[in-house]
């Protein structure tokens, strides 16, 4: 293994930070969702890296990563449906303007 574990974790942390920035700074709901996808991927890189370096004989890391991908699919499907529904009712996908649930 030419690349040590800490490099992988660093890259994953960087990707996570980028995704977090996207979630916090985007006005567009779909942009927020893109940020979430980045964060999920960062988590997945960590899972696979830990599996490879710490428990390479076990299956847990890979199985978990597959479950995360499956859950990400469900999350994207439901999230985007909500966004499309909101767009069709309110004609906007700007997060700040979707505030009916605030009160």
């Amino acid at each position, binding site marked *: 293994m030419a690349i040590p574990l800490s490099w992988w974790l660093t890259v994953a942390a960087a990707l996570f930070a980028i995704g977090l920035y996207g979630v916090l700074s985007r006005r567009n709901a779909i942009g927020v969702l893109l940020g979430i996808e980045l964060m999920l991927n960062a988590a997945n890189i960590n899972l696979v890296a830990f599996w490879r370096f710490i428990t390479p004989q076990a299956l847990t890391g890979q199985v978990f990563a*597959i479950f995360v*991908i*499956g859950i990400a*699919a*469900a999350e994207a*499907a439901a999230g*985007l*449906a909500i966004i*499309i529904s909101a767009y*069709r009712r309110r004609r906007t996908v700007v997060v700040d303007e979707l505030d009916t649930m605030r009160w």
Partner: protein
Amino acid sequence: MSSEFAFVGILAVFATLLPVAGLAVAWLVRPKKPNPIKQSTYECGIETRGEAWVQFRACYYVFALLFVVFDVEAAFLLPWAVAYNQLALYAVVEAVIFVAILALALVYAWRKDALRWT
């Protein structure tokens, strides 16, 4: 890194080179005489009205959704199919339940007429 994926990587690089080289050669030999009429949008011959961003119907989304659901199903069922010969009977029952739940999703979409192209 396994050697099989190394081959896929090499092939990916070469496969990118082909169109890039082709486009580069074409860029060198082809004539370049642009004018505004030529570069306008090619639709009906009369002048284009409005932007290309016409509103699309939501039923496209429902089909994409079903696709995602079944794609995930495939990713889960294929390892099961590979291991099938080593599996006991309970594993078959589990997978049948898994398929049945997803078939339920299809039946629901069907019953709700979400599959109809209106």
